[in-house]
């Protein structure tokens, strides 16, 4: 059974600082997703990572995948308040099914 663990689960960071969210998964997965959820809202797809060494960047967020270590990271550069949200990683094994981590609630404070 595929299990996905994120850490930290809560992250309070100051504006302008950098930080990394980690996502470990337990068995072989052929794709890794990062989603963002604002309070009371739906999930918005941020990144899809499909191969070892994949790196994707959008604005202040950068995601990477190491399939050998079964690890994905979401790096936040020079955080701003607008990035405050809950970030989920999800790993897929085979078609149709995604297993989600518990989410990392990020608060960016002035």
């Amino acid at each position, binding site marked *: 059974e595929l299990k996905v663990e994120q850490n930290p689960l809560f992250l309070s960071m100051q504006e302008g600082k950098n930080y990394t969210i980690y996502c470990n998964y337990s068995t072989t997965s052929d*794709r890794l*997703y990062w*989603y963002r*959820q604002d309070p009371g*809202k*739906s*999930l*918005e*797809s941020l990144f*899809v990572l*499909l191969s070892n060494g994949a790196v994707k960047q959008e604005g202040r967020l950068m995601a990477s995948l190491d399939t050998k270590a079964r690890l994905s990271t979401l790096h936040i550069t020079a955080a701003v308040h607008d990035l405050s949200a*809950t970030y*989920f990683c999800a790993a*897929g094994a085979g*078609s*149709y*099914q*995604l*297993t*989600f981590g*518990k*989410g990392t*609630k990020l608060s960016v404070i002035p």
Partner: protein
Amino acid sequence: DTAVSQTPKYLVTQMGNDKSIKCEQNLGHDTMYWYKQDSKKFLKIMFSYNNKELIINETVPNRFSPKSPDKAHLNLHINSLELGDSAVYFCASSQEGGAQETQYFGPGTRLLVL
């Protein structure tokens, strides 16, 4: 145009009642899903349908019954609602083999059972 839509957005009901949630997607996807997000924000898949056929049926009480009348719709009927059913239910869709199979989520239905 909303890609994945759900109705109702909010649902408040008494224990023991039966209720339905509807989901529609206009993305032309062939796979649809129901997820439950509990009060701790944990997301767990409940069901998955591909081309109107049930593919995934996780350990969910049989009071929950999904129905897919066509590829664009996946409804969820819940019988004999219990307090523990209170949660946010998300519908999602994806295309098998396409666009990295990204799942697109609906806005959610917030169910409160009193």
